[in-house]
């Protein structure tokens, strides 16, 4: 296969967004900034069409992996950039392009009238483009390029309303935390270069499958997991994500559902053939995922800010995906990734609609209640997505979560227990939110009567997303086929790619296990019931854990946030010490001091020359005598 045979759709994936962005930047922004979104929306349509076209190709067995041009070379070492259109990539790509496009459409309504409308759309689309690039990269360097671009775009979007102190701080926090994670990815890539001399996924798979043991592989694996933890907001690097909702709501939706946080999970999917070879590492991933999922679910149940609840929910769900990965269920992780994309986007946009209706940038659960009457469409969408999230049969979340629960069940032990608790926790926090916002006419909540339903451009995309979330269970079969056809045999332009790989990890999704499904549903019902009990049946109950140890504990994420803040402050103190005290005072002081010392010596010696001839003669005699003494010694 050569570059000429690359399907048009693959070119369009890049050509459309790039030209839309360039056109927007150079032409629209000057001529008609309020129309900047039009070429971009067109590009979204093209990208979505292209993604589905490619998905169809892959479905029919036409996946490929091709080098297009050599990016950099030095000596024997070279990095080629190319395209890898395979099952996992296309599965996520299709979701990302569809969900992303709907969010774009939503954003066109949501951001209307903003002073920086043009800027928003350009960065937003660049964010989208970066994710597409990440999903179609065929080697680690290329992946790293888009990985970083995703990070930068998220920085710019989180800090979009930069006049807000909190937005600036959140943007910085997000970027620096991601940088810390990127350190891991960069190191991993460099180590891969050092160990394998190639960076192509497929060649790496071949090498990894060759049975030779590689000394650096454990380190590479750990670095990759570290990177994924930062990007996908897993413990210990999850803390940036809840703050990152400072950006406009469409940004949060895109970040949480499609573009940003899924990158980490996707990285691990791509790297799974390497990671699986490292003994103990999958277990580590599973534990990280399990612990994060549980702990984020608990915190999500204590938050008041709607977006913050959803943010912790994302952390929790990403934890579930990591858990699935750690248990070797690559397919299950991917499945949940896709389904999660739909329901999480829908939920965020619902919150956006509520905020929009209230003319507030953030909404607390206290702020409003009983919206199910005034915002019917939003309510419907939220309900579908929430049920999906909670894993209620027969919505999408049920199937994807069930696959993970099943895996954990088979693994047994604490992880199984944790996954069940997460199922209960998820249901709890999402139903709590649902009840409080859409039903609960609690005393302190405002009357919902003056709140109106959002206009169609805000409502329709959300509804579509919610329907997608509901129907995503249907994707199970095609996805299975995607993953299999994508990872097994790849007809392509790379040498050795025709080999059939026997990759580690379970690619097939488990069949529905009725016991697990039943247990999961039971747990979800338990969570929902608790939520009902705490919010609706006993309005007097203090469900917010005000004051005391509990609040401090939940506010600080069990103390972790305090630790992180202390660490950051310590680093900046060290920098201050070095930059001001050590460098300016000691090192530079030493240099300047030496100059001063020389000058002082000059003054001192010159003082000996007082103009008295007696002294001069004594000096002469002493000097001559000394020389004489040396010579005659």
């Amino acid at each position, binding site marked *: 296969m050569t570059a000429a045979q690359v399907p048009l759709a693959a070119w369009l994936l890049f050509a459309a967004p790039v030209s839309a962005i360039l056109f927007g930047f150079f032409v629209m922004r000057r001529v008609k900034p309020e129309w900047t979104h039009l070429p971009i929306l067109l590009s979204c349509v093209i990208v979505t069409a292209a993604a589905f076209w490619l998905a169809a190709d892959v479905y029919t067995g036409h996946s490929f992996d091709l080098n297009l041009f050599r990016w950099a070379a030095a*000596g024997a070492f070279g990095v080629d950039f190319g395209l890898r259109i395979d099952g996992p990539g296309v599965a996520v790509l299709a979701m990302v392009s569809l969900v992303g496009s709907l969010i774009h459409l939503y954003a066109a309504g949501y951001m209307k009238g903003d002073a920086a409308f043009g800027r928003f759309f350009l960065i937003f689309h660049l964010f989208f483009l970066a994710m597409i690039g990440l999903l179609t990269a065929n080697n680690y360097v290329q992946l790293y390029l888009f990985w970083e671009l995703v990070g930068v775009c998220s920085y710019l979007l989180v800090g979009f309303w930069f006049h807000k102190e909190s937005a600036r701080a959140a943007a910085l926090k997000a970027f620096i935390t991601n940088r*810390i994670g990127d350190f891991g990815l960069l190191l991993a890539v460099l180590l891969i270069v050092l160990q394998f001399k190639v960076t192509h996924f497929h060649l790496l798979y071949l090498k990894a499958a060759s049975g030779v043991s590689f000394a650096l592989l454990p380190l590479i694996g750990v670095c990759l997991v570290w990177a994924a933890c930062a990007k996908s907001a897993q413990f210990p690097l999850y803390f940036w994500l809840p703050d990152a909702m400072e950006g406009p709501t469409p940004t949060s939706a895109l970040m949480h559902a499609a573009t940003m946080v899924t990158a980490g999970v996707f990285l691990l999917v791509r790297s799974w053939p390497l990671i699986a070879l490292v003994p103990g590492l999958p277990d580590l991933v599973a534990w990280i995922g399990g612990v994060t999922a549980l702990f984020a679910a608990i915190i999500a149940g204590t938050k008041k800010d709607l977006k913050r609840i959803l943010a912790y929910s994302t952390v929790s769900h990403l934890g579930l995906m990591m858990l699935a990965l750690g248990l070797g269920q690559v397919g299950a992780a991917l499945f949940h990734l896709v389904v999660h994309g739909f329901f999480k986007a829908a939920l965020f946009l619902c919150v956006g609609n509520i905020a929009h209706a209230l003319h507030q940038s953030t909404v607390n659960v206290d702020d409003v209640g009983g919206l199910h009457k005034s915002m019917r469409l939003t309510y419907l969408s939220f309900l579908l997505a929430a049920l999906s999230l909670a894993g209620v049969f027969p919505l999408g979340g049920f199937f994807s979560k069930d696959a993970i629960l099943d895996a954990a069940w088979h693994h047994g032990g604490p992880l199984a227990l944790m996954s069940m608790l997460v199922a209960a926790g998820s249901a709890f926090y999402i139903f709590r939110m649902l009840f409080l916002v859409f039903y609960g006419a609690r005393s302190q909540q405002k009357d919902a009567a003056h709140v109106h339903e959002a206009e169609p451009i805000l409502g329709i995309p959300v509804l579509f997303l919610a329907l997608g979330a509901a129907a995503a269970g249907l994707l199970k079969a095609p996805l299975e086929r995607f993953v299999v056809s994508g990872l097994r045999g790849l007809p392509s332009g790379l040498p050795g790619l025709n080999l059939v790989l026997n990759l580690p990890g379970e690619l097939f999704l488990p069949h529905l296990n009725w016991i697990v499904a039943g247990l999961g549903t039971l747990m979800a019902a338990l969570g929902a019931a608790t939520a009902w009990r705490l919010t609706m049946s006993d309005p007097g109950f203090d469900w917010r854990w005000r004051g005391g140890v509990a609040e401090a504990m939940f506010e600080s994420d069990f103390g972790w946030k305090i630790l992180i803040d202390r660490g950051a402050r310590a680093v900046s103190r060290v920098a201050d010490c070095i930059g001001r005290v050590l460098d300016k005072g000691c090192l530079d002081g030493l240099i300047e001091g030496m100059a001063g010392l020389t000058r002082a010596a000059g003054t001192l010696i010159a003082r000996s020359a007082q103009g008295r001839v007696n002294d001069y003669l004594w000096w002469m005699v002493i000097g001559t005598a000394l020389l004489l003494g040396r010579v005659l010694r």
Partner: protein
Amino acid sequence: MILPLTTLWIVPLIGAAVCSMMGSRSKHAALIFSAAFLAAVGIIGLLQRPTEGLLVINEIGPAWAYGISYRLSADSLSIGLIGLTAFLNLICVIASWELEVSAGYWACFMALSAALTGVFLARDLFFFYIFWEATLVPMFFIIGLWGSSNRLHAAVKFFLFTFLGSVLMLLALLALVSAHHRATGVWTWDLAVLDAGTLGSAAPLVFWGLVLGFAVKIPMVPLHTWLPDAHTEAPAAGSVMLAGVMLKMGVYGLLRVALPLFPILSWDALPILGGLAAFSTIYGALCAMAQTDLKRMIAYSSIAHLGFCLLGVLSRTSQGLTGGALQLVNHGLTTGALFLMVGFLYERSHKRGLSDFGDLASRAPYLAFFFGFSTLASIGLPGLNGFVGEFLSLSGALSALPVLAFAGMFGVTLAAAYALPAFQAVFWAPAGSGSVSAKVTDLNYRERAVLWTLSGLMLWIGLAPRPWLAWFEPALRGLVR
């Protein structure tokens, strides 16, 4: 041969002479001559392309006393760095177009370019040293005459400190030439002929003398304290040349003189040199975090950048050397752009402090865009130039000096922790009470043109670095261990 190599340094030198005589029209002369200079580099670099990058363009004058002779030679590394010099010189002239300065300003810049070019061309070590030192004089005047408030101190400090390194380097060169004469009976300063094997037991001393001389220029911590002062006080264009080209002389000296002459010693010295380079990366980044002055921050970031560039070079792998060489160009473009923009800010408001500004993203969107772009390039965003150099340098370093490369990577990671807060403080944060943001107008067409050019190059190198790497790679092949 279309143009002799001598043209390359004579053109700017004549330019300097003409500028100094043209009075109020000297900036036009400077523009013409710097354009001619760039054209000359283009002609020699592209039409007389050094095939295979080896020392192929040579120019050998008569031999004078003690084997001193006027020998020039250019390979792709030299031409690349001269191209950078010429390009930045032109950029500086255009960027300073509206400054109210005397003819001497333009003459100094042209003279500086001439001397820098000479350094990159000389194959005779005597001439290498002459050009090396001659760079100091115009820069001394640029800082002293057109610098900001503390310029008097900074100018003298800059000169003396770097001269200290040069004196050591000179003594080392003298010892080398003498030893060669004693062993072979031939006086020569020719880099291609000199053999450090004749030094015997004095070799380490000579090696370290040379390295110290270069390390001051690079600058390597703890020999760096001249740099923040000099950068901060110099006028914007002066900082551009200082960071863009003058710092490169140190790495160039290592590549051209120290490593080829002492291949084994330099390998033995790797733990120390590499350790200092890695340390510079972290130290520079931490220092940059503590700065409250934009220029000082960028100056410290230069120390950090040159640190990992050096790591790559010292690793003596193909990636490391090529990436390091490309990083020299990258750093020139990126830091050059940043210094120019701080200069534009300073011209408008006479302030440079992080807290003196705020909210500039709304007031000066172009400035914000270019500053953000360059900052991202500087912290190594893939797709922009900084990443290529960083990636290849570190990749080379990792194979030779794993622990040091690891340490160097920390410095790279820290880059975001100083660059972005500074960006936010100036462009995003609301303007404080003492802020001078109101005086800051957005970039005009001339300034934008300059920055578009620089940004375009950053993007080009970032997206398609291969031709650039291919340009440098052959010249460095001989150094690969």
